[in-house]
């Protein structure tokens, strides 16, 4: 792993969920990670909708951002599973010489170039790589009251051959992290389920049907909080649940709470589904 990173927060988090950015920076500071915001960042050409309007647009836009990290000798940390998939899949696709050369042809018009591979990491990987001992040492406020339903989300896992973060069946990373900070896990999917977010705006009834299947399972398991490393899944659970609902935390928020952040400091008051702690 690199010892210097750029933090790429994407669009959804900085614009609508800045409290997740606040929490992630709290955690990265506690972990003493050397990071700075990715300069001159734009949207990653999100992989659910925009990418299919221009797969070559996606390659050139992501290559432009990767080229800045490469130039400055840094890896990239993403807080969003969509952004992470965009950057990681692009880095993978650009190993193809034809695609790389075509993409660099576009970058050349702005004096940029991407020559090799850039280390791209999901926030979850950075935290997990610290290991159990270090996470336990940094945990000032064990989260024993939480009975977590884990929602890894599609793009932390799939395509597993490119992402390589976790097992495709019954993933372990969130289970380990939850246990290291003292929380109980009451539901972990064998096959990480979709939250339905990709159909929000295209077919809302279909999107809700998919979301509700997950919620029924979480309720049956007796969960009092949902944990996800993805802001799109977070939005589905925080904004689309009807009535009482189960509160949801992004992984950065859970880690920040465990490391001693005050709920106000990381803006938990902005959640629609309130976590009563």
């Amino acid at each position, binding site marked *: 792993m690199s010892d210097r990173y750029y933090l790429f927060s994407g669009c959804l988090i900085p614009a609508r969920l800045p409290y997740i950015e606040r929490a992630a920076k709290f955690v990265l500071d506690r972990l003493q990670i050397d990071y700075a915001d990715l300069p001159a960042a734009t949207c990653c050409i999100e992989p659910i*909708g925009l990418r299919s309007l221009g797969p070559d647009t996606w390659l050139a836009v992501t290559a432009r951002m990767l080229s800045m990290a490469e130039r400055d000798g840094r890896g990239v940390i993403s807080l969003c599973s969509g952004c992470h998939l965009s950057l990681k899949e692009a880095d993978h696709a650009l190993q193809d010489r034809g695609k790389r050369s075509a993409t660099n042809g576009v970058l050349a018009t702005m004096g940029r170039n991407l020559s090799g591979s850039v280390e791209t990491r999901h926030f979850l990987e950075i935290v997990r790589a610290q290991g159990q001992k270090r996470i336990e040492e940094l945990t000032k406020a064990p989260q024993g009251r939480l009975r977590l339903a884990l929602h890894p989300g599609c793009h932390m896992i799939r395509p597993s051959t490119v992402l390589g973060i976790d097992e495709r069946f019954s993933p372990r990373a969130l289970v380990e992290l939850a246990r290291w900070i003292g929380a109980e896990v009451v539901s972990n999917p064998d096959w990480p389920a*979709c939250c339905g977010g990709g159909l929000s705006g295209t077919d809302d009834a279909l999107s809700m049907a998919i979301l509700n299947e997950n919620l029924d399972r979480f309720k049956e398991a007796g969960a009092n909080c949902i944990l996800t490393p993805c802001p799109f899944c977070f939005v589905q659970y925080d904004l689309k649940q009807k009535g009482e609902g189960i509160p949801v935390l992004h992984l950065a928020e859970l880690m920040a709470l465990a490391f001693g952040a005050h709920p106000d400091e990381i803006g938990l008051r902005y959640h629609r589904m309130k976590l009563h702690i």
Partner: protein
Amino acid sequence: MQKAKVDPALDAALTLQDIRAELSRCIQCGQCTFVCPSGRYGGIRVREVMERALGSDLDLSTDQDIWKCTMCHSCSERCQSGADPVAVFTILRMLASLKGNRPQHLIEEAKLLWTTGMSFPRTGMTKKMRKELGLPEVEISAETLSELQRIIDRTQMGRACLE
């Protein structure tokens, strides 16, 4: 907006030939349909779309099924024969959008991307929350935006939806 000038080299990297290779690997086993969260509730029927695409029995100027995929990658992950439905749908959607078949909200998203550099709008609430949390304002410089627009101009997105 300016008329797009598609970079021929990039354009050539993505054609129907890419799909044909993937499609011909499909053995119609139906595993994709079995794991599809959308199909379970009446959305896209993955195996059928793969079959119809191979038989050129898919009208891309009107087909709505291709827009009902959540892009969860379950089908491609489970596929035993090396076909990659997600890659196929991505290209089918691109070809459909070139024929004017795409959801309106995606066009709005692309326009927002063009004008702001981001795919979610920054609002008064964004400013308020970031200030209260001690975070700097989100700034995208004119130079950054101009670089992004130059890329869009020279690639498919410019041709597909911003002409």
